[in-house]
């Protein structure tokens, strides 16, 4: 990670320089006229402007490179890996979260499932699930069942032998009764239709 360290050092130096300029300007150590004069010089000199433009492009490229390296690093930390004779297989934790979302879509009792998967060497895989349930069901029974399903499906699909801890947080119960009440209210508000009594 030599490039990564070089970019970090470069940005530290640039930031320190900018900080020093701002500080000296605020403390009146640098005359405003001097800065204006220097900027005028640059604007009148075509070579200086080319150098400035090149520096700008370099800064942007370095920033993009830094972003890519950082993102790749983060990605590497968020994976589960195992080795096959032909090479390594890495599974991103996003893929595990995708699987959990699909499980949530299969179960009619769940309105919304928000997963968050954490993998550490010490604790193994920790699955945190935030649930919105559709109807009034037996929560302890259902969540216990879901914990088991999640654990089994992860082990079965990803072939993981590590310890899996599934934590479920029921955040909301989607009130169907409220819906029914609202419907009843709407019906009650509708005006009565008068049907003329037929004369015999």
């Amino acid at each position, binding site marked *: 990670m030599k490039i990564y360290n070089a970019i970090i050092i470069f940005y530290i130096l640039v930031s320190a320089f900018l900080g020093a300029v701002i500080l000296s300007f605020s403390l009146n150590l640098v005359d405003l006229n001097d800065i204006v004069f220097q900027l005028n010089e640059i604007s009148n000199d075509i070579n200086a402007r080319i150098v400035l433009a090149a520096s700008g492009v370099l800064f942007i490229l370095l920033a993009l490179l830094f972003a890519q390296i950082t993102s790749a690093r983060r990605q590497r930390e968020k994976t589960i890996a195992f080795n096959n004779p032909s090479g390594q297989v890495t599974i991103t934790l996003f*893929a595990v979260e995708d699987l959990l979302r699909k499980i949530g879509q299969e179960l009619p009792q769940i309105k919304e499932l928000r997963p968050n998967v954490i993998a550490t060497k010490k604790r193994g895989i920790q699955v945190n699930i935030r649930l919105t349930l559709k109807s009034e069901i037996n929560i302890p029974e259902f969540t216990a069942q879901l914990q088991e399903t999640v654990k089994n499906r992860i082990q*079965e699909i990803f072939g993981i032998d590590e310890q899996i801890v599934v934590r479920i947080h029921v955040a909301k119960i989607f009130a169907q009764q409220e819906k029914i009440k609202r419907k009843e209210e709407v019906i009650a508000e509708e005006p009565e239709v008068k049907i003329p009594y037929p004369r015999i």
Partner: protein
Amino acid sequence: MSENTKTELGEIKIHHRVIASIAIEATMQIPGIIKIGGNLKTFLFELLGKKDNVAVKIEFDKDSEAIITVPIVVKYGYNIPEIASKVQDNVKLSVENATNINIKEVNVKIQKIEKANTEK
């Protein structure tokens, strides 16, 4: 960016993109694979209209043996270790058969799991 082989008549250069294309073809032959890529880099290249062979990474070690890294998006419901193993075997076989390059490792990255209706 190319692997050289010398013959009596001259030199044969195989570009990394060619190896990547073979690896992609071999990967897509495995049932349960939706697409190659699925990471930020591929997404950015897709926006720029680049093909998916940028997603496959080809490296060579000191002994000129190739290390291929393939990021994939898998169809929901398939067994991941099984698919990954099939990808590794098929990529290794296809690249070795087509180019005579020795493959040291085929690394598979499972980036995402998607439902079958998103299949291209």
